[in-house]
């Protein structure tokens, strides 16, 4: 493992908190992957005629908050990662991890409106009465959960190669 000793390079924004930010980012991601998976199971239940509406709304709200928190924490740690991890190490020794991270970050942005959209719809939709809306709601929930799982696994693989 290669360690970095700070020399004459400039301090990057929030660099001194990078490890803490990534740790909190991971903790938030744990909440996110758990709540989104449960949310998907509830949505699947809707399709099968099992309506746990209150639980579905709770999960939608938790997912929206956890997604936003994970997103924000990751964006604060990103400048440090971009130079210290990707620029100096991954682009040199583990290009696959560098590319995987960029795929992960783009997927996270694409998934953001899905989490917000699912939350908005969960507040107004009655899955029993509004059956025509169900496929759309399920698309938002399932696609967002798939993105979250991809990102969690990708994040773990990248961190195994090199973390902040």
């Amino acid at each position, binding site marked *: *493992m*290669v*360690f*970095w*000793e*700070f*020399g*004459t*390079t*400039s301090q*990057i*924004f929030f660099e001194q908190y990078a490890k803490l930010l990534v740790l909190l980012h991971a903790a938030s991601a744990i909440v996110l992957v758990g709540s989104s998976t449960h949310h998907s199971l509830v949505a699947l239940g809707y399709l099968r005629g099992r309506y746990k509406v209150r639980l579905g709304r709770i999960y939608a709200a938790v997912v929206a908050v956890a997604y936003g928190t994970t997103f924000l924490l990751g*964006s604060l740690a*990103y*400048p*440090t990662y*971009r*130079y210290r991890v*990707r*620029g*100096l190490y991954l*682009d*040199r020794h583990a*290009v696959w991890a*560098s*590319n995987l991270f*960029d*795929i992960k*970050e*783009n*997927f996270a*942005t*694409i998934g*953001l*409106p*899905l989490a917000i*959209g699912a939350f*908005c*719809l969960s507040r*107004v*939709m009655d899955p029993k009465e*509004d*059956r*025509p*809306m169900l*496929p*759309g709601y399920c*698309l*938002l929930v399932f*696609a967002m959960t798939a*993105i979250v799982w991809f990102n969690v696994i990708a994040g773990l693989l990248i961190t195994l190669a090199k973390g902040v």
Partner: protein
Amino acid sequence: MDRKQALYVATFAGVIASCLVYVLPAFSPTRVFWYYPLEHRWAFELKPSALAMDWYGRTLLAVVASFFSFAFTFVISRRLKPLASSRGFHLWVGWAASALLIALSLYAYQLLNRNPVPEPLPAGYVPK
């Protein structure tokens, strides 16, 4: 349309706009905000002159497009007739699924076999 249906349509319009606008810089030169982490500055430009990150700029672009698309669609939808059948609801799902597929697959395709240029190692770098 009632509020529920308008919200449904507007939500999917927001998702579609977000996906399509987010991929726009990937295939069409688009000015976005770039952050230079070593220089601690922002720049609104087409291409960076040093190590820079356009993720913040592209994300902001997508969020703004999504918001305006959502708001515009919601206002217009409230003035339209309700969706008569489930076909209308499913059309929006189809369009959103297509936009999602385009966005996800475009970035995966472009980034999977990318060969990035590493940054030069700075003075004082001591591998252990």
